[in-house]
């Protein structure tokens, strides 16, 4: 391994010689799924001894990028060069042999095996055909000592915290002579102390010349550890910057704001005639929260009001939505509707109150792919009526037809399995599922994610139309322009708590960005 002589361990001034071939050079990487581009011409350069943060919201293409680079999925176009030599791994295994190791957020080791077995799986020290358990444990302990880990390597990996599991995964990768480490959200479930340990290890490894690609959504951590930053957005490269030269506000704008060329084109002015929501609100969540999930919050919703939930990935937006819908039971606070106190312990309770929820995970939590569009649309209505009060086939057909026409679901065939529809049309069918229940509150989590441009605009139009009809909407979106265009009020979240509420004139992209960027208590300190 060629170690640049001027290597420095300090994260801010590590500038390797320009002339050396970079450790990893990704050029023009593209990947489409079913015609929908997930990555379009991405360039990323990882230098020797560099910690490089890869940032972007959900759906920005970070995971796709990692998978395409490591050969887990085939790339459509583009090159990957390791120290100048092009590589084309066809599996994670081949990538590892080439020297690229990936540690996923969901640690892909085996919790039922011991730490030592995990470290040496498939390459245990042997004698007479038997594993030398003692020798393996000695080596494992020695290896982990380099990482300041002094643990019982004979115990199952699953007994240890996620932090330790991450370190073990990194140790395995490094011991298998990886030169590039890709860490996908390694800190998502670590506490501050564990993050500090991980960072120390990362700095040490970078000091040995390894390149580390670090995916995270904690901006404080990005500033604490990374040398450079690459930001992706909607499958496209927004830019590559030196961390030290990039103000936080600018970074958030890169992640959430439209690209500069588009930003000015469409800045919708709020409709001045729009009535201000009546004070008080018909649906009131008070002190609502769940320990370790979302800090208690107050939220009052008036009819016809659209409340946007903004914040970075991991700020607690989806968690809030699940609490509001009873999908996760709150352990504090109460809900009153029109002054009555209401129990909210399950989605059924929420539906009984006229709530509806379109989850972000459309495929796993939204649609039932095998069932037809008609069946998917009537599902919630039918569930609320109970099995013994079936909708007749004619009523079902009528409901399905009505919404297929109203929302322009294509193809307009109610008997087609919904799994065969495009993402946008699936989303519309899910909206139809809830509109059919004549809800008073709809919670939409990233309603426009993964949807083509045309359907995107239609869904926005729908949201605007629905609120004029008296429906209350809570909408989560990473598209700030989008939120601004329809929200009466924007609640900004960070670190799983509400940190600001913007109303009236204050509902604009800059204000939201400022609220998000406002200095938080540094996480990793």
């Amino acid at each position, binding site marked *: 391994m060629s170690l640049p002589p001027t290597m420095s361990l300090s994260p801010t001034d590590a500038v390797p010689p320009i002339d050396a071939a970079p450790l990893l050079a990704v050029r023009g990487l593209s990947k489409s799924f079913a015609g929908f581009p997930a990555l379009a011409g991405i360039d990323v350069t990882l230098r020797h001894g560099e910690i490089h943060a890869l940032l972007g919201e959900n759906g920005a293409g970070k995971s796709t990028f990692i998978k395409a680079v490591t050969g887990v999925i085939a790339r459509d176009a583009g090159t990957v060069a390791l120290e100048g030599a092009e590589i084309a791994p066809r599996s994670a295994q081949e990538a590892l042999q080439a020297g690229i190791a990936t540690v996923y957020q969901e640690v892909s080791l085996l919790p039922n095996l011991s730490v030592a077995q995990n470290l040496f799986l498939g390459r*245990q020290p042997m004698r007479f*055909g038997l*594993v030398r358990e003692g020798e393996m444990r000695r080596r494992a302990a020695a290896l982990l000592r380099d990482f300041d880990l002094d643990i019982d390597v004979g115990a199952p990996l699953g007994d240890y915290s996620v932090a330790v599991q991450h370190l073990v995964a990194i140790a395995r990768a490094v011991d298998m002579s990886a030169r590039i480490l890709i860490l996908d959200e390694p800190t998502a479930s670590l506490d501050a102390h564990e993050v500090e340990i991980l960072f120390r290890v990362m700095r040490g490894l970078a000091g040995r010349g390894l390149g580390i690609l670090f995916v995270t959504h904690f901006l404080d951590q990005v500033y604490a550890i990374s040398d450079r930053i690459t930001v992706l957005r909607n499958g496209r490269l927004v830019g590559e910057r030196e961390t030290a030269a990039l103000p936080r506000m600018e970074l958030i704008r890169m992640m959430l704001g439209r690209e500069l060329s588009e930003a000015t084109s469409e800045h919708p002015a709020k409709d001045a005639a729009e009535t201000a929501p009546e004070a008080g609100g018909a649906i009131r969540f008070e002190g609502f929260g769940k*320990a370790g999930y979302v800090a208690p919050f107050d939220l009052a919703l008036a009819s016809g009001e659209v409340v946007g939930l903004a914040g970075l990935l991991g700020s607690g937006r989806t968690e809030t939505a699940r609490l509001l819908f009873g999908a996760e039971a709150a352990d504090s606070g109460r809900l009153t509707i029109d002054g009555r106190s209401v129990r909210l312990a399950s989605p059924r309770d929420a539906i009984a109150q006229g709530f509806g929820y379109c989850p972000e995970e459309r495929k796993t939590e939204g649609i039932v792919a095998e069932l037809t569009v008609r069946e998917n649309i009537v599902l919630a209505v039918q569930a609320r009526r109970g099995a013994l009060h079936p909708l007749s086939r004619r009523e079902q057909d009528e409901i399905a037809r009505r919404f297929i026409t109203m929302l322009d679901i294509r193809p307009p065939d109610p008997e087609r399995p919904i799994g065969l529809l495009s993402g946008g049309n699936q989303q519309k069918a899910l909206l139809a599922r809830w509109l059919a229940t004549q809800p008073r509150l709809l919670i939409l989590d990233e309603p426009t994610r993964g949807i083509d441009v045309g359907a995107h605009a239609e869904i926005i139009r729908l949201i605007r139309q629905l609120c004029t009809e008296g429906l209350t909407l809570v909408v989560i979106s990473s598209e700030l322009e989008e939120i601004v265009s329809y929200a009466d009020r924007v609640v900004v979240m960070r670190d799983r708590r509400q940190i600001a509420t913007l109303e009236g004139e204050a509902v604009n992209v800059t204000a939201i960005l400022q609220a998000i960027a406002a200095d938080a208590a540094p996480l990793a300190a």
Partner: protein
Amino acid sequence: MTRYLPVIVTAAVFALGYAVCALQFPAFLSTRVIADLLTDNAFLGILAVGMTFVIISGGIDLSVGSVVGFTTVFLALAIGTWNIPPLLAFMLVLLVATLFGATMGALIQGFEMPPFIVTLAGMFLARGASFLLSTESIPVTAPLYGAISDFALRLPGGGRLSVVGLIMLAVFLAGGILLHLTRFGTNVYALGGNRVSTGLMGISVGRHTVAIYALSSFLAGLSGIVFSLYTSSGYSLSAVGVELDTIAAVVIGGTLLTGGYGFMAGTFLGVLMQGLIQTYINFDGTLSSWWTKIVTGVLLFAFIAFQQATLALARRSVRGTAAKGTTP
């Protein structure tokens, strides 16, 4: 130490059961009863060794009972009718059984079919094949059989540890070494933990799946040989439903049916536990054989409920740490 808890519980329950038996019937303490326990359950024990590998790898093998039946019929015909020397017949049948298991493994891996269904088809096939060979009970009269059943290790106290009992002990020992002390064994656990992760860590999932089912069928063939020696006959209906007893023995031995956890020693205890219940019922004389099934069922429930509870506890503690991590 929670890892060993299921086995410790099994051992404690077995010790307790044995003590109860011994208090009521002091003869339980004689080496004769112990030796008979091993002999009578030899074929079940050998099957359970193979099943332990399969279940720890996250699969299941329903075909083992049928393979035993096939083997006994094949041996009876091969030795009695086709005049093949017994040892050659043994080797032939082991080869056939191993290939049979390897094929099932290949189907499971190659077509991503659930093991339950593939081995169900294997169960039909092997049983059907043995029916096709013969539906009669055929006695085996080879001199080797007589010699083997005459031979026994005499234990102090009058016990006779038969050849088949010794074979079972040897299989358990070899199985234990293979499972706990070799790379192959570790890989079996890895497969049961998470097939995808195992593949990502560079272990060939396909090769191991084939090997595991081949091993299980090989041991089923060996168990068939033992059964043939034990009964000195071949019958296509022998060992019907034994796959259930085998699975029960493995689960009672503390192995998780979802895969990834378990010990060979636990399986040994599970087999002995079933033998103990049977022996107790024989001693009692008034109790009927169906109590074996009922007690086995109750034990199964107790152990599965126990595992479910331990898992839930483990999950809660993991979730606890995760929640702690996300609290700012």
